[in-house]
């Protein structure tokens, strides 16, 4: 059940320039899964709306959540000043999350681009936990430069391939360049990142005839499906809107790529 609660900051550190790693003590964690997000509320009353931030990790005891976010504006700048013991209002867990079970027994690509990388950590953990001998996780992560945050951590769950725009680490280019250069193959894809990357993944998955579960983002207001601010065009008429408009916050943020017009 979604709730708005007060959580307590356990720790926060800047893991890369303007990218912050924040652990929050909250019992919302017990219900959270990979690919879901929380709304984080700024204290400054001039910035009212919750900031949708994806869950990077759920602590095993279900009592803490980790988010990794980039400073993108006034709200996230405020969050970057949070210190151990501070309180912050959050709402969640929001959205549907990744169907981790779709990776079971399969060769899996986890593809992340920039600030789309954090949800891949919890997803890798969830797939690994339920995996069998046939499950192979390969993470392909795209960065701007040598600040390859979270890549070491993803290495715990499988092989990691890095692409950087400036070529300073791994393949020069993007995640698609890395797949082709390394000759990688998969039976199912999970991805989160900028729209051009998701479009490329959608067409790659269609070409290969494999499912791709992609996590979308859009300007949001309510975060709970009421305001209809964050919609995406869908191939089929969806159950809620009846006008081919799914709500990213509640029907998503994860969609099978073939189901959405992006």
């Amino acid at each position, binding site marked *: 059940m*979604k709730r*708005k609660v007060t959580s307590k900051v356990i720790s926060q550190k800047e893991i890369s320039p303007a990218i912050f790693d924040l652990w929050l003590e909250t019992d919302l964690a017990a219900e959270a899964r990979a690919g879901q997000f929380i709304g984080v509320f700024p204290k400054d009353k001039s910035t009212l709306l919750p900031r949708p931030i994806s869950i990077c990790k759920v602590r095993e005891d279900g009592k803490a959540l980790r988010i990794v976010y980039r400073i993108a504006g006034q709200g996230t700048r405020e969050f970057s000043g949070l210190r151990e013991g501070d309180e912050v209002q959050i709402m969640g867990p929001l959205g549907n999350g990744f169907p981790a079970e779709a990776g079971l027994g399969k060769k899996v690509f986890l593809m992340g681009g920039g600030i789309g990388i954090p949800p891949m950590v919890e997803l890798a953990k969830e797939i690994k936990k339920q995996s069998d001998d046939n499950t192979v996780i390969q993470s392909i992560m795209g960065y701007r430069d040598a600040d390859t945050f979270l890549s070491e951590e993803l290495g715990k769950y499988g092989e990691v391939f890095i692409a950087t725009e400036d070529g300073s680490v791994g393949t020069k280019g993007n995640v698609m360049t890395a797949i082709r250069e390394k000759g990688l193959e998969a039976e199912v894809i999970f991805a989160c990142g900028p729209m051009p990357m998701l479009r490329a993944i959608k067409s790659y998955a269609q070409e290969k005839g494999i499912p791709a579960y992609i996590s979308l983002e859009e300007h949001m207001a*309510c*975060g709970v499906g009421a*305001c209809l*601010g964050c919609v995406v065009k869908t191939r089929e008429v969806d159950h809620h809107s009846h006008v081919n408009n799914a709500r990213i916050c509640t029907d998503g943020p994860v969609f099978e790529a073939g189901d959405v017009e992006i």
Partner: protein
Amino acid sequence: MAEERKLGISRENHTKSSSGEQKKGVPDLRTTIAGVEFKNPVMTASGTFGSGMEYGEFVDLNRLGAVVTKGVANVPWPGNPTPRVAEVYGGMLNAIGLQNPGIDVFMERDIPFLKQYDTKIIVNVCGKSVQDYIDVVERLSEEPAVALLEINVSCPNVKEGAIAFGQKAEALYNITSELKKHAKQPIMMKLSPNVTDITEMARAAEAAGADALSLINTITGMKIDIYKRKFVLANKTGGMSGPAIKPIAVRMVYQVAQAVKLPILGMGGIATAEDAIEFLMAGASAVSVGAMNFVNPYATVEVLEGIEAYMKKYQVEKLSDLIGVVE
């Protein structure tokens, strides 16, 4: 934390108040609009609360005076392209474009959902032509559970219809008198603040036979991303809501209350009970919480509890003793 519980579950004494005797020392929160009695004055602003399903996870819908639904048209409307929402200082802009599933789905899904609750149903009606509005109003006349119709002639985000009826007194007069011929339920015209003189619009609606007025709809605004040199909203303009617009809304409610005799459902930036009481004192018979539902999903019930606490503290016996009392 107050916010961690689902508010209202244990407040059974309020769920059956509408016809029963009021207990001594318990403020009488009942209010009446166009002959319809509501158990309390706290409602939801159209478009911010869907048909209640989403916020039903956070608040007990039985606590609300009414749920005012998202606008519904005769056929499904796809709405505007994204981005549809943007934050601005102390508020937000939206240009949803009245996306809705159409009256057929609404009658089959949303009305039966709301009928499960002990709250009144107010349906917001939108259209592109007078005939569109008539079609919806006639369909709703089949449904006695719908207490009141709020006629949306003030959405700033759709190009045809809607606002075109709400910015010219003559057009507002015509659509109001036309809908009065077809509506079984009382009609409440929702006024736009994007006019030179809102009292002129209020008078036109009253002269045409409107039963009530609701105000204000959002104020047209714009936001520009200076780094991309682009409009933030795909629609370029959007309706501004949130606490930043409250003083404008209170002023307009006061002006309209002075100009006409019709009951008023007041709204615009209500975040707290204190805000709501300002609207009541300005002349509103009831209030709607809008954008603040997004900021605090428990806002409606907190506003209600705050009004009740105020009435107890200042020994106000009945809500009508607050309406229009400002001097």
